[in-house]
């Protein structure tokens, strides 16, 4: 091979900038060829996708609406991932957060908004935190693999929601359909004007600021990083690993639980199955692409929101949903795949006759 991969000592700043752009262009080209072959006009489709997501006030507002739960899940996940705790249970934490928050308006529908909403936020965060704490303590005390436990708890959390919605919490006036009663107005998050952008956006941005300070300027943020990259060194330095694992999982789950609360209270206005189309899983990709950096996660979740909102608009041109997902998928594939170029460079070793050839 005349080419070889060479690791960059520091990630290339130019590449950080250029690679995603080039990857995006390449993926659009790739899909364009496919679309041309199947007899469709790629430019028209891309324009529909972009204008659907960003080309109007409404589209833009909906992209933000979509970005809120993605952002919260991405942020929650990043806390655990910083410590190399692989919390892939954001989906379940979201559902349990939604469930815990729903309990309040169903049990005390007459509370005024200024009591109801803060309590719902607390309950949502507590629900998510509890759901993440279980794998956290298992991991901290007995080294149980958290990938398995967080994943399994997703199913349990989602099934709990189904159980309550099909059973005890079913709306008595809902003709036995699996929906809880609609929340009273006091349990609905305030929103901007006629859009669906709710105050959850501010909560999410507040968490961004909090995490930014936590990760960069706090002792605990530093401990997270050290424990993540070298548990032995951390123990030698006298850091309490058990406690920190539990704390990181609690915080991670609380933020994901908040995503569930804002979704039921800000968007749907009741608890129902199918609450999240996989926000907790997309959040993993977002956290990863954002390199666990809170600010980058904000941008990534906005882009993912746009990608998903635009994906539906493509269908109005007669493109099947499968092709829309294919476009979304290949954009991701190229962007994630190209990320390697920021950390490695390809060096040409051919003409000098690489050393490896002679030996």
């Amino acid at each position, binding site marked *: 091979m005349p080419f070889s991969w060479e690791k960059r000592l520091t990630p290339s700043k130019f590449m*950080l900038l250029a690679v*995603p*752009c080039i990857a995006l262009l390449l993926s659009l080209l790739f899909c364009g060829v496919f679309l041309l072959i199947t007899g469709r006009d790629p430019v028209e489709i891309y324009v529909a996708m972009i204008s659907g997501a960003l*080309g109007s006030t409404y589209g833009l507002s*909906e992209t933000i609406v979509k970005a809120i739960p993605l952002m919260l899940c991405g942020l929650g996940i990043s806390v655990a991932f910083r410590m190399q705790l692989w919390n892939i249970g954001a989906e379940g934490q979201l559902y349990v957060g939604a469930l815990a928050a729903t309990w309040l308006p169903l049990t005390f529908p007459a509370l005024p908004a200024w009591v109801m909403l803060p309590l719902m936020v607390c309950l949502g965060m507590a629900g998510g935190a509890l759901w993440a704490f279980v794998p956290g303590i298992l991991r901290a005390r007995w080294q149980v693999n958290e990938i398995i436990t967080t994943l399994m708890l997703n199913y349990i959390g989602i099934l709990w929601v189904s159980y309550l919605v099909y*059973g005890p919490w079913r709306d008595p006036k809902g003709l036995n359909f699996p929906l809880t009663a609609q929340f009273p107005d006091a349990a609905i998050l305030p929103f901007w004007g006629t859009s669906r952008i709710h105050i959850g956006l501010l909560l999410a941005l507040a968490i961004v600021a909090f995490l930014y300070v936590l990760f960069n300027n706090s002792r605990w943020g530093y401990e997270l990083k050290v424990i993540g990259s070298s548990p032995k060194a951390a123990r030698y330095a006298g850091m309490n690993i058990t406690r920190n694992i539990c704390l990181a999982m609690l915080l991670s789950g609380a933020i994901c639980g908040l995503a569930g609360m804002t979704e039921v209270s800000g968007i749907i206005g009741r608890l129902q199955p199918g609450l999240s189309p996989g926000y907790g899983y997309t959040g993993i990709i977002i956290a990863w692409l954002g390199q666990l950096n809170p*600010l980058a996660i904000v*941008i990534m979740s906005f882009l993912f929101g746009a990608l998903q909102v635009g994906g*539906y608009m493509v269908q*109005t041109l007669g493109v099947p949903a499968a092709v829309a997902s294919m476009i979304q998928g290949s954009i991701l594939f190229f962007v994630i795949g190209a990320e390697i170029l920021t950390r490695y460079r390809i060096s040409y070793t051919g003409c000098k006759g690489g050393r490896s050839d002679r030996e």
Partner: protein
Amino acid sequence: MKSKYLLVMLVGLLSTALLLAGCGGTDKKTSAPAAEKTKVAFVYVGPVGDAGWSYAHDQGRKYLMEKMPDVQTTIIESVPEGADSERVITQLAEQGHKIIFTTSFGYMDPTINVSKKYPNVVFMHCSGFKTAPNVGTYFGRIYQARYLSGIVAGKATKSNVIGYVAAHPIPEVIRGINAFTLGVRSVNPDAKVKVIWTNTWYDPAKEKQAGLSLLDAGADVIAQHQDTPGPQQAAEERGKFSIGYNTDMSKMAPKAVLTSAVWNWGPYYVNVVDAVKKGTWKSEQYWGPMKDNIVGLAPYGPMVTEETKKAVEDAKQKILSGQWDVFTGPIKDQSGAIRIAEGTKMSDQDMLQFNWFVEGVEGTIAK
């Protein structure tokens, strides 16, 4: 530092995107078609290729296009019932669609919400119960067709165990299972109907697996309330029989399918669009009977006997006459207690909130 660069790059990207979008917008306006076509949109919960629920609606849309060439249709498929549906419906209304059919129960609240912002658009929601001045609901009495398909199954079973793969324990599905069971036991009082819940409308592999489990449990006919032909294929593989749903599923399992309880949305869609164009449309709750041909049975498979066909035809005439309906007493529940007295017809209201099984069903409803 890293994030700063990212930010710069993404802002750049976004502004290019916006620019592009702006250009695209103007292009489109100039190329708007001169002929005024009525724009009609359909929102589907599954892919149209599911060969089931969404496919049946899409067949209805194609029928509409054929009968009314001055209608232009748009479809959006695989739309989740949560936050996404409200946006999709809004954007369709925004694009100038005059009639929007939302074809899944979970679109109920989103449809009502969007309808308030677009008073001049007609919204038709399938299978729900909320209406507004510009929102009507529509559905069909598929339970009548299920009763008939139950007769076919009851005649075909030898083990006297019939399997039923069911999606969610909601009234619509429970009503279907009950009607089917009454049909089965009208010709075969010893037969039982075993129910498995999948908790999904659309999951071909899981639906098939549920069918196989029922076959393992001794069933020799498989019926279903699911959106894909998965359970039919399970029966085909094992050399057993099956009853399809939504559309004629005999193509997917030619040796197994006895018949299918099918939807026939096309004529109804034509009526609605026609009424809207003439200005005679009014919001109503339409629950179409078999008499309107919105529900029915698909052609029989070659294995169905003449005797069975005769039994079905007799029951069909009884239903079409309007004198008798499927849920006419005496009907007992699973415990053997009489729930509908002899000679009484169950009211529509009670049927719409069905939450108990009739005698002969083996299964439970989560309470």
